[in-house]
């Protein structure tokens, strides 16, 4: 009647042992963390110094070594929520389209007459044709440039939306193409942010796409959100433009020209052709270096196609100046002395050593396809995090001890069983957190402390029920059995409802709140498991051995 099959017992103890084994590394947090770092070094083929070897030996490799990640509020670090200006890309696409539109319309000059690009809002291309009668033909020519959209949802539609009114043709990206472009922009942005953060080499950064146009970036251990922002917020768009003039800020650009300031001298301005000869995509590598004067500079190599383009351009423009532009500022504007066909070059400007190193990192990682604005930023210093952990630990120990004593005083031996289950329960929570690689936040610690309080609830329900059943004098064995049976439905209902709220918290919440939801949810699962299986097993093992005539709960 009170028997639990052997395989059941083995399964229960096995699960408990497994959970506790996974929780164990957290007791030796710094040592295991060093071990994991060292293991990563070895795996990446890094130098195995004595120090690394010692760290590696600090924790046996056959034991589980996953740890609970500490959230930013506990470890310190920076958190950013960035919004990618996806519309930037529409404008760039339209600018790139203009030469094609121009060439295509020129071929149809007989019917459309002369053509001229008009001022238009960003992301729109407006072309005026001199013979309005030729509009239909012109529209057909431009529409022919539209290609099928390469995405699942947009299949069947073209990339361009072309319309004509009077003598003006308006070209924009089609809805489907915009969606496809946004998606591509976001993927590129996430990838580039990831590459830049990885270049700095911090531990466990989180880089996630959120919603349609946002990226969440969390980097533990970095000094401030500002540092992170300069790293990932710089577009690092490098372009090479032909120079058409230089002067002060009063210069007015001609059609299809830009006026940009010099990086070194804010009073010096350059007039440039808007369409670049080369851009960052044509770079294959960039390294910090020193120029012939011993000043910091950046050496770069071009891709094969980039090298060919630049070779052709420099051959036909010997003696003309060209400008190297980074994010809207002219770094330098050297004159072409001879054809440059080697596929490599040097950017020298007014750099510091750190400046050139960072520029090289940014150029290597690639330019962001669009600018980012920051909607939210949080910096937590490492000391505050350490204080929070210390306070959380003390609170958890005091809370735990107080609950243990209270249970012992209230339920005696049964209280002891519940206490063992409670300790197992906390162990299991940590084991599960480590196993799934979840992040522990300060509210998460609160969640665990709350679970300590609530975990005894299931046991209390059972014990109170056993007390009641004992009153009707059915004998201890029957009372225990009935107690477990009848308490079960209340335990399930009570915990499922709490679990529902934990799930909603997880889905709707972010950051620390989500950390709380995880510990709360896991705590519910483990506390039901420990109450219904572990304490029960303990009670029955004790009962089997002693066979008491009466019990007091």
């Amino acid at each position, binding site marked *: 009647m009170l028997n639990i099959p052997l395989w059941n017992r083995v399964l229960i103890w096995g699960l408990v042992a497994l959970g506790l084994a996974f929780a164990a590394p957290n007791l030796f947090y710094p040592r295991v963390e060093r071990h994991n770092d060292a293991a990563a070094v070895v795996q990446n083929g890094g130098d195995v110094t004595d120090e690394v070897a010692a760290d590696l030996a600090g924790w046996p490799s056959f034991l589980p070594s996953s740890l609970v990640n500490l959230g930013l509020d506990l470890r310190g670090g920076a958190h950013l929520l960035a919004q990618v200006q996806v519309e930037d890309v529409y404008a760039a696409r339209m600018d790139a389209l203009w030469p094609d539109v121009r060439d295509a319309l020129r071929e149809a000059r007989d019917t459309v007459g002369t053509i001229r690009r008009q001022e238009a809002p960003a992301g729109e291309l407006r072309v005026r044709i001199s013979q309005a009668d030729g509009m239909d033909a012109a529209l057909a020519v431009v529409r022919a440039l539209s290609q099928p959209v390469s995405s699942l949802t947009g299949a069947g539609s073209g990339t361009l939306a072309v319309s004509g009114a009077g003598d003006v043709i308006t070209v924009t990206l089609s809805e489907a193409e915009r969606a496809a472009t946004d998606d591509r922009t976001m993927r590129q942005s996430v990838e580039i942010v990831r590459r830049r953060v990885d270049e700095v080499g911090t531990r466990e950064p989180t880089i996630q796409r959120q919603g349609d146009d946002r990226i969440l970036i969390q980097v533990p251990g970095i000094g401030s959100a500002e540092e992170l922002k300069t790293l990932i917020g710089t577009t690092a768009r490098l372009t090479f433009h032909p120079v058409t003039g230089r002067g002060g800020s009063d210069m007015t650009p001609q059609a299809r020209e830009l006026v940009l300031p010099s990086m070194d001298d804010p009073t010096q301005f350059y007039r440039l052709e808007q369409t670049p000869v080369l851009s960052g995509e044509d770079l294959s590598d960039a390294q910090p270096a020193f120029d012939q004067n011993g000043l910091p500079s950046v050496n770069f190599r071009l891709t094969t196609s980039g090298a060919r383009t630049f070779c052709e351009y420099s051959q036909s423009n010997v003696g003309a100046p060209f400008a190297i532009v980074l994010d809207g500022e002219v770094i330098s504007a050297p004159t072409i002395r001879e054809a440059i066909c080697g596929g490599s070059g040097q950017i020298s400007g007014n750099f510091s050593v750190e400046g050139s190193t960072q520029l090289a990192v940014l150029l290597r990682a690639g330019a962001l396809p669009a600018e980012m604005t920051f909607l939210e930023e949080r910096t937590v210093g490492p000391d505050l995090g350490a204080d929070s952990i210390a306070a959380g630990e003390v609170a958890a120990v005091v809370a735990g001890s107080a609950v243990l004593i209270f249970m012992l005083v209230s339920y005696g031996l049964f209280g002891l069983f519940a206490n063992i289950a409670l300790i197992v329960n906390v162990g299991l929570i940590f084991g599960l957190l480590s196993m799934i690689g979840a992040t522990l936040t300060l509210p998460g610690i609160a969640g665990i*402390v709350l679970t300590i309080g609530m975990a005894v609830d299931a046991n209390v329900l059972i014990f109170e029920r056993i007390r009641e059943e004992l009153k009707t004098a059915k004998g201890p064995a029957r009372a225990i059995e009935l107690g477990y049976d009848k308490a079960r439905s209340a335990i399930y209902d009570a915990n499922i*409802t709490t679990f529902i709220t934990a799930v909603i918290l997880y889905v709707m919440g972010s950051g620390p709140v989500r950390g709380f939801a995880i510990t709360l949810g896991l705590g519910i699962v483990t506390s039901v498991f420990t109450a219904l299986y572990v304490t029960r097993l303990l009670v029955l093992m004790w009962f089997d051995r002693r066979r008491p005539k009466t019990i007091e709960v």
Partner: protein
Amino acid sequence: MRLKLVPDNTSWDFFRFDAITLGLSGIAVIASIILFFVVGLNFGIDFRGGTTIRTNAHSAVDVGAYREALQTLDLGDISITEVYDPTFAADQHVTMVNVQAQDGQESVTQETIDSIETALQEVDPTITFPSVESVGPTVSGELVQTAIIAVSLAIGAVLIYIWLRFEWQFSLGAVLALVHDVTLTIGIFSLLQIRFDLSIIAALLTIVGYSLNDTVVVFDRVRENLRKFKRMALKEVLNLSINETLSRTLMTSVTTLIALIALFILGGDVIRGFVFAMIWGVLVGTYSSVFVASSFLLRFGVKRDWSKPEGGAGTQFAKTDA
């Protein structure tokens, strides 16, 4: 010898004064709503946008001097609160400086933060800035929306779950108790002007879960007793069920409170508001599962006899309409 919070075999009548208890709850709910609309919540930057800088100095804090130093920067609304905590070292003086969201900016610019930090460093050279948090108006607006949706969803999901497991009367009683708890929590936060941020929403949802936990345990027993004592009046069944589960209700509340109070005192100031909300929620939730959920259940009535057709239960439905 055992510690017992409740004597064995109680048979207290929990509904003798239920007009008074329900009335008091009603007044408290109305007072909370008035407080919320008149005084309002002290929203943190999560919901209002703006910047919070935590400062840490070795010498005593002169809030007036801080304020004066920042006034010259022309940043609009600034609030400075000194923070006290038993876990602080003797020479640790902490304040929270709140600056409103600046016009035309999403998250705060570095120049603004730098200017604040420089100004404060002139007042006190030992000052450091352990954390800086900034939320732009776009995100804070969305967070408000998400928070409201989350709480409504939680209550809605619970309504459905209990309806499926019990009867609609139980479900409605439980949800009224939840609304009572959440409203009173918002009321106390308005009254005491404790900072209301994203983590308090987490606390609110936990209160929803906890309060429900209590209510469901009582209801579970009511359901069982309704089957066992088919002829007993509903009021008697409710009283019996509450009495039978009273010991468990108080045991769980006390263990949870023990844990929460430890956290409140020792857990540091960063989560104190959060823990306060939960302590309040446990107290109110325990009260409401007995005096609100069950009282409403008594008033709604429960369909007892399933063998008769719908019309036979008319008396109970008539009651609910009244």
